[in-house]
């Protein structure tokens, strides 16, 4: 019945820029389970990477340290060789000592060629070997030289190759030492970095997931509240992807559809109940014009000859007027009881309220309640459904009648609202008032203070639905012991075109 309500968005919910408009079943699917699985996989991949990396770096370090040990031995040997070379040049000691050390150095290189090559690369290794063999060649030449002059001629090239050989090796050993230090430092720090990364990731995932879950849960709580208040528009939670919540939303929507259907059945029964109440009163109301007509017509036939033309005319006019009066009473009830879809029209609110008071006139009279209606002149028109608006006011008046003792008073006021562009209707009674602790629940569906079977508890919730749909509001002020006033505010309409948009 109130399908149009679906367009109303709750201002309390932040809809944001999220894909509210995309139908649930068209959203790409990533379940919460998948999200959790992805998070765990991320953890695993990260830990795995770090472990593999650590293993790799430690292996590399192992090789480098091995290399450094070999290099150290090698360095010792070639330095020894150079020392004996110098001794030979100075004191002509045995050159074989130098050659022996060089041989050992060469053995070290040859035996560990694979390991050294791994670190230095084949080019540098070959350079190293070639420097050493060149130096070796020079040493052999030196030993073979026949005289001092010939020896002196060889010395510069011998020194050059010797220092080249040593400095080349020293440079590499130094470089490797620095690299090893760096790698140690890295191997020490990476686990710390890793731990921090894991921590940040964990916090992020935890915060993100729980925030998302909590926000969505809150949103679902809002939905249940909204449904509780009688808004049966389907829910479209802001989920970018299809997940468990989307499935929950679909289940909700199914439930809402069923509820809406049952609610409509209830609304119809509520209206029927109101009609039932009114019919008794209206039938009563019919008796007066019927009685006037019957009395007048009877007297007209009875005294036909004796009556003057003028008297006859007056009596016939009375019959016509009273028949029309009866017609109005019937029409008013039929207008109210008419079944059908919402019909928006430009309406005079004062006339709507007045018709409503007329519908309940007998209930009011029977309860010996005093009802007064004050309408401000020149009220703007409003756009609304006549029948539904009457339902609201009839309902408010009957509620007041129900709680008022004889001689109680109902004052209805129709005037322009202080807020420009709105019309304000107040229905005030001096009844017992409504306890503060139930004032908040009074608009809830099925909430009733009336004895069982007397009230459905739907009247005010239905009324609120009707008024809300027209862009207005209904609220109440009540002081226990003093009375209650229901305040209805409805937007005024200047142009008929606004009707179409509602």
């Amino acid at each position: 019945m109130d399908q149009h309500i679906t367009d109303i968005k709750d201002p309390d919910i932040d809809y944001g820029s999220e894909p509210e408009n995309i139908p649930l079943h068209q959203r790409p699917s990533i379940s919460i389970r998948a999200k959790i699985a992805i998070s765990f996989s991320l953890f695993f991949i990260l830990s795995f990477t770090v472990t593999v990396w650590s293993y790799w770096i430690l292996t590399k370090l192992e090789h480098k340290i091995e290399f450094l040990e070999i290099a150290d031995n090698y360095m010792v040997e070639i330095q020894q060789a150079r020392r004996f070379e110098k001794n030979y040049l100075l004191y002509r000691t045995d050159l074989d000592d130098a050659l022996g050390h060089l041989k050992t150095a060469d053995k070290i290189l040859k035996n560990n060629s694979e390991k050294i090559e791994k670190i230095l690369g084949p080019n540098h290794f070959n350079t190293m070997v070639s420097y050493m063999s060149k130096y070796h060649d020079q040493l052999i030449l030196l030993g073979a030289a026949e005289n001092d002059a010939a020896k002196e001629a060889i010395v510069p090239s011998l020194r050059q190759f010797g220092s080249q050989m040593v400095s080349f090796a020293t440079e590499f050993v130094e470089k490797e030492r620095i690299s090893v230090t760096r790698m140690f430092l890295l191997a020490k720090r990476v686990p710390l970095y890793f731990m921090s990364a894991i921590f940040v990731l964990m916090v992020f995932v935890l915060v993100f997931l729980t925030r998302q879950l909590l926000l969505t849960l809150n949103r679902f709580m809002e939905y249940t509240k909204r449904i509780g208040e009688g808004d049966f528009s389907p829910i479209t939670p802001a989920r970018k992807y299809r997940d468990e919540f989307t499935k929950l939303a679909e289940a909700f929507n199914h439930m809402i559809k069923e509820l809406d259907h049952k609610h409509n059945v209830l609304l119809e029964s509520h209206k029927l109940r109101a009609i039932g109440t009114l019919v008794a009163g209206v039938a009563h109301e019919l008796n007066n014009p019927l009685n006037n007509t019957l009395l007048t017509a009877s007297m007209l036939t009875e005294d036909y000859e004796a009556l003057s033309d003028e008297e006859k005319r007056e009596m016939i006019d009375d019959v016509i007027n009273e028949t029309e009066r009866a017609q109005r009473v019937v029409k008013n009830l039929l207008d109210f009881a008419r079944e059908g879809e919402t019909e928006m029209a430009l309406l005079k609110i004062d006339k709507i309220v007045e018709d409503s008071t007329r519908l309940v006139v007998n209930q009011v009279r029977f309860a010996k309640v005093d009802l007064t209606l004050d309408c401000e002149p020149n009220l703007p028109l409003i756009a609304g459904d006549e029948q539904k608006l009457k339902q609201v006011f009839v309902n408010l008046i009957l509620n007041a009648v129900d709680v008022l003792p004889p001689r109680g008073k109902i004052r209805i006021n129709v005037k322009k609202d202080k807020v420009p562009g709105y019309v304000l209707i107040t229905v005030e009674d001096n009844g017992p008032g409504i306890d503060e602790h139930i004032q908040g629940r009074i608009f809830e569906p099925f909430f009733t203070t009336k004895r069982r079977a007397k009230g459905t508890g739907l009247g005010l919730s239905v009324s609120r639905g009707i008024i809300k749909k027209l862009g207005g509001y209904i609220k109440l002020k009540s002081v226990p012991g003093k009375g209650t006033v229901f305040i209805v505010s409805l937007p005024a309409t200047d142009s008929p075109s606004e009707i179409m948009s509602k």
Partner: protein
Amino acid sequence: MNEQPLKIMVIDDENIVGKRLKPALEKTGDIVEAFEEGETALARFAQEPFDIVVTDIRMEKIDGIEILERILAKSQRTKVIIITGYATVEIAREALSKGAFDFIAKPFKPSDLRQIIERASKELRS
């Protein structure tokens, strides 16, 4: 029919009722006064008692039951006839238990009321 004319009071806030019942009931030679408000009717009754009071049960300020009580309190012999919107058992029982002579349901013909008044006048004169 040389009997003393009866004094009849008709109270109904529908003015057509008084307008039509006055000539209808005066045909029997009785004196009829019509009122639209209970207050003025009771004030008039206070000046001099009437023999028969025909009153509508539902009226704005004072309803028919109250008029019945106040009239019987003043004049026990007065016959009060209640006009009801429609005859419910409760209203009829209440009216009769409070001393109404009879009741008549709307809508009725003048002749229907005249029959009741005739019975009432018989009782008054017996």
